[in-house]
């Protein structure tokens, strides 16, 4: 990722900052909802004040995850072709996983 160092560095840290309060909130909420039935869980997620911050956490998380793995690939894989392919797979995988996760939150909101 030659030449992309600075925005990369900034985005990795901005997403980290965004996730700090959201992760604490989400983990604390999950503890409170441990043992919930599917209906109870869905009713909780469907509130806008849960669905919106949860979606932000997911988006920031998948972005941060993609950037973090990119750095690790750059550190250990030096063959340009292999490195390029792994970067592509990392981006693709993060996008697919992120889409499914955010779609699930939207779907739950619509079902309830």
């Amino acid at each position, binding site marked *: 990722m030659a030449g992309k160092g600075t925005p990369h560095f900034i985005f990795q*840290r901005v997403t980290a900052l965004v996730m700090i309060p959201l992760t604490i909130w989400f983990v604390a909420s999950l503890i409170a909802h*441990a*043992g919930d039935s599917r209906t109870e869980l869905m009713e909780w997620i469907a509130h806008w004040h849960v669905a919106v911050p949860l979606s932000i956490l997911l988006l920031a998380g*998948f972005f941060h*995850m993609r950037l973090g793995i990119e750095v690790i690939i750059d550190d250990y894989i030096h063959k340009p072709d292999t490195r390029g392919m792994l970067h592509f797979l990392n981006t693709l995988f993060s996008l697919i996983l992120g889409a499914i*996760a955010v*779609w*699930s939150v939207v779907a739950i909101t619509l079902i309830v």
Partner: protein
Amino acid sequence: MANHATAPVSPHLQIWRWTVTMAASIFQRATGVAQYAGAILLTIWLASAAMSEQAFNTVQSLFASPLGMIVLVGYSWSICFHLINGVRFLFWDAGYGFKIKTANLTGWLAFGGSIVLTAIIWAIVLVTGGGN
């Protein structure tokens, strides 16, 4: 070939020593990778809830199995460590906490704090969540 016994050797191989700051840096990377796996689990869980009662119950019972519980405890510890040590790194980026004494102390804090936090989380879940 020169005499290997007396030839100078690159110092990093001799002066190398395990330190808590080094361990914390390595674990930041390891827990980051672990969270990649955790993100897959979180996504499966959310998607199963969106899909059907049967899908959700299947995933829930997998998570509640002995192996599932071990994985979840590991995942929650990964989150705790990566978050605490992440804050520590963000302070470094802002220019604070570099003194060796401070860096060592906060390094131990990241390991100790994340273990204590994980224990507290699961203690609460076992006490309140189990009977729900």
